[in-house]
């Protein structure tokens, strides 16, 4: 029975667990490329699709990608987007901002990233975008080398050029 102070409504049980991740072979190949300012894709040996960034397998066929890598462009086509207006402690970017899916030229899978240097009302599918890198002396084996994507100013890619990757 609750006393005059009422029932216990909250029990705080702080949990902190530390993990040391292993990037794995495929992610290591990708991150080594990023360390040098390059996006390295890896091919599925079954259908030839180029995954950027590969987590080790072709998710459609369950076979390893690589070990050979295929350099893809750091330019690509915006194939989806959402304007994020809700703040979160996990976000390093101030809302509102555009979260985007980018199909890099030469890749068959998309990267998620943030679009900047562009008015939100102009963001659209088909827009041509490019990666903006940190200064070279700050490059590490991390995706944080790319701060954001921005429009290239090229004409939009026609829908047919990316419709098979939606």
């Amino acid at each position, binding site marked *: 029975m609750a006393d005059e102070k009422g029932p216990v409504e909250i029990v705080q049980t702080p949990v902190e667990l*530390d993990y040391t991740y292993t990037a794995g072979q495929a992610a290591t190949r990708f991150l080594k490329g990023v360390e040098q300012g390059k996006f390295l894709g890896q091919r599925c040996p079954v259908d030839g699709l180029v995954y950027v960034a590969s987590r080790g397998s072709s998710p459609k066929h*369950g076979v390893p990608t690589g070990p050979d890598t295929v350099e893809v462009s750091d330019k690509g086509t915006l194939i989806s987007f959402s304007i994020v207006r809700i703040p979160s402690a996990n976000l390093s970017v101030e809302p509102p901002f555009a979260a985007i899916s980018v199909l890099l030229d030469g890749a068959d899978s998309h990267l998620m990233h943030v679009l900047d240097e562009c008015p939100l009302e102009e963001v659209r599918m088909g827009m041509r975008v490019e990666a903006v890198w940190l200064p070279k002396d700050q490059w590490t084996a991390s995706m944080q080398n790319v701060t954001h994507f921005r429009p290239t100013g090229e004409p939009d890619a026609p829908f047919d050029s990316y419709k098979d990757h939606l």
Partner: protein
Amino acid sequence: MRDVAIVAFAQSPSVRSDTQRNEVEILMPVVAEVREASGIPKGEFDFICSGSSDYLAGQSFAFVAGLDAVGAWPPVSESHVEMDGAWALYEAWVKIQMGYADSALVYGFSKCSLGDLPEVMAMQLDPYYQTPLWPDAVSMAALQARQCLETGAVTAEQMADAVVRSRANAKSNPNAQLSGDVDREKLLAEPTFVSPLHKHDCSPISDGAAAMVLVAGEKARQHCERPAWITGFAHIMEPMDLGVRPLTESRSTAEAARRAGVDAAKLDVAELHGPFSHQEILLEQAIGIGSSTDVNPSGGALAANPMMAAGLIRLGEAAARIHDGSAATALGHATSGPCLQQNLVCAMEGR
């Protein structure tokens, strides 16, 4: 009941820490190996089921990433248990019994090396009274071992002998992590780790994966020369709290064995999942295993214990003894939860 057989089994080597590969990269060759062994191509399994734990992976929905090792396109019928892969096998077996599938691919995997395993295991406890105290898995097992020793349910010599047997048997298991010739007296003389447990009484921390293929009916013979037919399959649960169940015996193991129709006197091989040496003894006692049964020819969990795969590996090692003709009857056991809380028994035979 439908006749269902284990027709293929594969496992990765168990290692203390695989620093080169992520979970998917560990799992992929194992899945490829059972597919190849069974002759069932990708996309032709009626059902896929896996066992893994997000707490071990340190990320949410880690099992979804695990599916990348299988290739879920075209889309597949799939399920997952946040338990050892042995329970995934049970789910697949039930699915087949119900007539929803004739074949299944089952796997379990983990990288226990990523976090502090004994602490991570505290997350499986009661979140109000127990987890805030962070009782680690080894300490929990030590409480059980103390009761076993003080009541005489298990002797220190029996515990040491279980380790001697495990290490010796593991010499012929290339996937084991700990193997070799060790001496009972030397083991007993070693300092305790978490009293009364010595380090050797505890299973090692392992990264690894295992996979298995089930096929129903006579068709199983097309996929395996000598299938391991499942003659009984049961899992039984006890309360989680250590204070409300006897720890010096494993009633749920005894009941699971009874329901699985195990005749201990006729058992050629038993693969028991005892992550601590005293638990291996409790399991033998619960099932009533005698001297005519070869216990843990693989070395058991004391030789390698990749969580979420180690139980499935016990079932696979038992099935492998049937596949190779060295056993006519075999039992595979898996455990889950603190201090043998939940136990699964799979009885199989070659015919």
